[in-house]
C-alpha cells in the first residue's frame, strides 16, 4: 500500500456510500460528487497536468448542460447521443477558446478565459434568450431511458453516474501516463525546452484544453439531468471558481486529489448551507487558508502524513 492507493481507497469509500448505506440524502450527495468529479478530473488535466489556469470552464460546463437539455427537450434526441453532443459542443467551444487564449500565457490566460466565458454568459442571458430561457433557464431536463431502468430514482441513477465516473477516471489516468500526458507535463515544467526539443506546444495545449472541455460538457449535461434544470448560473464565473477551489483543495496534478476536493466541497456545501447562509464566505476563508498553508491540497497532506507514518516507503 502507498499513499496513492490510500487515496484511491478513500475515494472508493466515498463513492460507495450509497451501496453501504442506502438513504436518499446520501445518494443525492454522492451523485453530485460523481458529476462534479468528472468536471474536476477534466479540469485538472488542464490545470494540474498542463499547468494552465483557466477561469473559463463554466462556459463548457454550462454549454454542455444547455446542449443536452435542448437536444432532448426540443429536438427529441435520446439521452445518450445528447450527452455525447454535450461533450462535443463543450470540447468544440474549448477549442475555440484555446485559439484565442493560448496566444497569451500565465496570468493573461486566466484573465482571457474568464472574459471569454463571461461573454458566453452574457450571450445566454440576452442574445440567445429564445433558446436558453434567459435568466429563468429551462426546467424539466430528462434523465436517460435505458434497459427499462427508472433512472428518475436517485439510487438507480447512481449506477449510471458511477459507470461514467469510472470511465472518466480511467481515461484521465491513461492520458496522464501516456506520451501526451508526459508531453503536457514537460510543457508545464519548462515551455521553452519543450518547444525546443520539438513539441508543438500550442497544439498540445489546444488538445488538452479540448479534452478538458469535453469532460466539462459531459458533466454539465449530467448535472442538468440530475437536478432536472439548467440555468445561466451554470455558465457564471463562480462555477469556474468552484471547480478551481475543488481541485486546489483536493490537490492539483494528482489523479485522486480533485475527487477528494469535490467531496469535501460538496459535503461542506451540504452541511454548512444548513448551518449558515454565509457558507460561501466561510468557504472563501477555508480556501484562502488552505492555499497558504496547504498548497498541494489534501492529496499533498495525505502523501506527507503517509511518508511520516511509513518512513522508508516509496511515496
Amino acid at each position, binding site marked *: 500500500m502507498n499513499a496513492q492507493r490510500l487515496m484511491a481507497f478513500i475515494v472508493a469509500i466515498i463513492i460507495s456510500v450509497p451501496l453501504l448505506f442506502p438513504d436518499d440524502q446520501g445518494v443525492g450527495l454522492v451523485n453530485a460528487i460523481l458529476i462534479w468529479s468528472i468536471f474536476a478530473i477534466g479540469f485538472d488535466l488542464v490545470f494540474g497536468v498542463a499547468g494552465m489556469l483557466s477561469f473559463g470552464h463554466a462556459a463548457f460546463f454550462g454549454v454542455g448542460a444547455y446542449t443536452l437539455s435542448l437536444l432532448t427537450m426540443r429536438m427529441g434526441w435520446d439521452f445518450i447521443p445528447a450527452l455525447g453532443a454535450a461533450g462535443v459542443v463543450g470540447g468544440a467551444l474549448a477549442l475555440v477558446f484555446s485559439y484565442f487564449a493560448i496566444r497569451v500565457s500565465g496570468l493573461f490566460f486566466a484573465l482571457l478565459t474568464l472574459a471569454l466565458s463571461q461573454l458566453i454568459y452574457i450571450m445566454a442571458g440576452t442574445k440567445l434568450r429564445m433558446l436558453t430561457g434567459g435568466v429563468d433557464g429551462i426546467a424539466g431536463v430528462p434523465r436517460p431511458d435505458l434497459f427499462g431502468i427508472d433512472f428518475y430514482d436517485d439510487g438507480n441513477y447512481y449506477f449510471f453516474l458511477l459507470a461514467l465516473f469510472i470511465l472518466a477516471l480511467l481515461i484521465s489516468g*491513461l*492520458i496522464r*501516463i*501516456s*506520451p*501526451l*500526458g*508526459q*508531453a503536457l*507535463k*514537460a510543457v508545464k*515544467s*519548462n515551455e*521553452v*525546452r*519543450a*518547444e*525546443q*526539443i*520539438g*513539441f*508543438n*506546444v500550442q497544439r*498540445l495545449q489546444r488538445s488538452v484544453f479540448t479534452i478538458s472541455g469535453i469532460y466539462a460538457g459531459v458533466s454539465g449535461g449530467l448535472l442538468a439531468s440530475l437536478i432536472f434544470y439548467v440555468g445561466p448560473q451554470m455558465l457564471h464565473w463562480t462555477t469556474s471558481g468552484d471547480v478551481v477551489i475543488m481541485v486546489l483543495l483536493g490537490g492539483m496534478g494528482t489523479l485522486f486529489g480533485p475527487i477528494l476536493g469535490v467531496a469535501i466541497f460538496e459535503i461542506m456545501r451540504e452541511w454548512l448551507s444548513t448551518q449558515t447562509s454565509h457558507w460561501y464566505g466561510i468557504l472563501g476563508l477555508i480556501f484562502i487558508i488552505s492555499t497558504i498553508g496547504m498548497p498541494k491540497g489534501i492529496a499533498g497532506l495525505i502523501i506527507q502524513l503517509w511518508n511520516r507514518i511509513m518512513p522508508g516507503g516509496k511515496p
Partner: protein
Amino acid sequence: MSASAENKHVLRCEDIEVSYGAFKAVTNVSYEFKPGLLYGLIGPNGAGKTTLMNALSGRAQLSRGRVFLNDQEITGQSPHARTWAGLGRSFQITQIFSEMTVFENLRLAAQAHRFRLQPFWRPVGHFKEIARDAERVLSEIGLEGFGHVNAGSLSHGDQRALEIGLALLSEPKVLLLDEPLAGVGHDVVEKAVELIRRVSQERTVLLIEHNMNVVMEISDEIIVMLAGEILAAGKAETIRRDPRVRTAYLGEEE
C-alpha cells in the same frame, strides 16, 4: 575535407537583422555554414551572439533577411518546426525539466522526435523505441547510471551535458550550443570539451564560448561578432592575427 563538401552548406542566413525598437541586436549577417564543421562564435558581451542563435533557432523574430536549412527556407518557422527540420540547440541558462528524472528528460525528447501527434491511448512505457533512444543518448553523454536521478539535483556540468543530450535526440544536422561550458567546474571542462568534440563529428556545430583557449583549439572556423555584425571569420590562426579583432577585444590601435 573533400572538394564537393566544401561548396555545400547546411545552414545559410542571408542578410538577417533582429531589432528591438531602434536597437539592432543583429544586423547585416550573412553566412554559410558547411556540413560537419565546428564553428566558434565569439565576441564581447552584447555583440549579438545569443541573438543570432535565437534568430537561427526561431526564438527571435527577424526584421529582415532569410534563413535556410538544407536549402529549405525556414524563415518565420516556429522553434519546434526547426527542430523537426534538423536544428537543435542548448541554452545559455540551463533549460531542463528539473523536477523529472534524467531518463524522463531524455525520453521526452525522444517522444518529441518520434511522434508528430503524441499518443494518448497507451502508457508511455509501452513505447519501447523511445526508451531505447533515451538509454542510448544517456550513455552517449556519459550519464549512465544517472537515469533515475532528478535532473535538478545533477551537478551543473552534468546538467549541461543533459541539455546537449536533449538536443541530440532530435538527430540534428546543425547543433547550436550557447556557452555549454559556462559555470562548468575546471575539473570537468575536459570531459565537456570531449563531448562537444564528439557530437561535432557527425554534424555542424555552432558554439558560443568565452573560454578562448577551448574555442581556438576545437573550432574549425571562428566567427567574430561585434555590435551585431560579423567582424571577421576564418581559421583560428587568421583570427588571432586579425588587427580588427585585436582592436575589438583589446582596444589596441591598428
